[in-house]
């Protein structure tokens, strides 16, 4: 029986979809069977981030309304053996096209066949958010070290605590800028965690490669040497119950020769 996690944030643009895709691929690389559900009805992205857009035939609304069988709609990512699947969202429907009970039913149908079900929530706290949390056993709240994002995350944690999920919510602080941490201008990560009062699942650095890879339809996790990749992989290990210490955030030293040749 699998466990379902909703990836949510309240605020838009903090990296929910990127986080979902990277945690999903990291778990799949560790041999777990993972299915990613895109619940951003009408503004789907997860398919594009994974480079699977052209393989969409049926979507989650087709499944929920009985137009398609679940196995017809699931898209297998061939790069990860039999371990990573995507259930896409429709692009031409409204958030109201889906009800929370229908999402819960789809998740229940997936649980026997998968170890992890990751629900990528849309921004906001309306119908789309309610749909996403309806099927989840636990929540991964994504925020960035900015006052606006932390404030929205706080609101979302409150809503999640009211929804009686079986697992406590966990926090990912995304887009941490090493040079700002270095020179002391960034919001303190410990302060953010303490303020929100939930367990820290991971700290992801702001890395250009995350965007570069995503534009190619790949996740940064597929590059084993990248700093953000290592951090996502550690998140996956923590979800699997391992105790992994946080990697220190250090700015890359740019020496004279580097500056000279990499302008």
């Amino acid at each position, binding site marked *: 029986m699998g466990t379902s996690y909703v990836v949510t944030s309240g605020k838009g643009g903090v990296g929910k979809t990127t986080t979902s895709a990277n945690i999903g691929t990291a778990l799949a690389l560790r041999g777990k069977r993972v299915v990613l559900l895109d619940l951003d009805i009408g503004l789907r992205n997860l398919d594009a981030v994974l480079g699977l857009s*052209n393989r969409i035939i049926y979507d989650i609304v087709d499944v929920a309304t009985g137009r398609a069988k679940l196995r017809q709609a699931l898209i297998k990512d061939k790069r990860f053996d039999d371990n990573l699947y995507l259930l896409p969202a429709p692009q031409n429907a409204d958030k109201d096209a889906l009800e929370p009970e229908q999402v819960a039913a789809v998740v229940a149908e997936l649980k026997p066949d998968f170890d992890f079900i990751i629900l990528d929530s849309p921004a906001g706290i309306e119908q789309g958010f309610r749909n996403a949390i309806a099927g989840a056993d636990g929540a991964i709240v994504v925020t960035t070290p900015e006052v606006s994002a932390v404030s929205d995350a706080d609101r979302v944690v409150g809503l999640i605590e009211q929804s009686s999920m079986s697992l406590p919510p966990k926090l990912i602080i995304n887009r941490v800028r090493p040079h700002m941490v270095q020179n002391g201008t960034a919001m303190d990560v410990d302060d953010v965690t303490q303020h929100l009062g939930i367990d820290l699942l991971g700290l992801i650095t702001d890395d250009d490669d995350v965007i570069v890879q995503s534009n190619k339809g790949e996740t940064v996790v597929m590059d084993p040497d990248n700093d953000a990749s290592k951090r996502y992989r550690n998140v996956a290990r923590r979800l699997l119950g391992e105790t992994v210490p946080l990697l220190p955030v250090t700015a890359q030293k740019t020496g004279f020769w580097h500056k000279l040749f990499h302008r």
Partner: protein
Amino acid sequence: MDAVVLKASSDGFTLRLDEDASFEAILAQLTDLIAHLYAETPEGNVSFTVTTGNRLLTEDQRQHLAAVFDDYPRFAVSALTADVVDAQVAAAKVAAARTHFAGGVVRSGQDLRYEGDVVFTGVLHPGASIKATGSIFLLGHAEGVVHAGFPDNARAVVVGDMTGVEQVRLADAVAIIDDEHPAAGDLCYMDDAHMLNFAPSVQLRQLRPWIFDQVEDK
């Protein structure tokens, strides 16, 4: 002139309802006629074709007509025909026979639908789709989903540059276009085995000759 005329032909019996007579008169005469005929044919099932000329019966009138036959179990109406069709139905038929022209920018999530053939001169973005019951001729730039013969017309084709599209669909079949499976030709058609095939568009003349012979076909 009689409101109802019975005619016999090699196909069976036809009841012609006079288009100028009132429906009440028709109903009265029909009731008498059927009663008379039923008495004269003691056994065997008889089915009638009812034709209404330049008149379309309303749903209510059709029910009244059917009710006349209810008392005579060996008699039945096999077909109800008219020389005319409803204006809406006629307009839909005309639209389906027409070649449509579509253009402009079709954005992600937008879904163009046409009855009949379409010539597309615009830009179809990824996540957008164009669907036609007939064939689609791409002159513009398409990156989304191109669906000809929607939902079940296997004779439809897609002609044009399909190298950058996400999917080509014909009737109920799908071809996903990617690096491993590129669009190998500027014509996509469905073969007799219900498989999607690509070919150079010059072969359209042989594969779908009727497209070039619209008058004969429609």
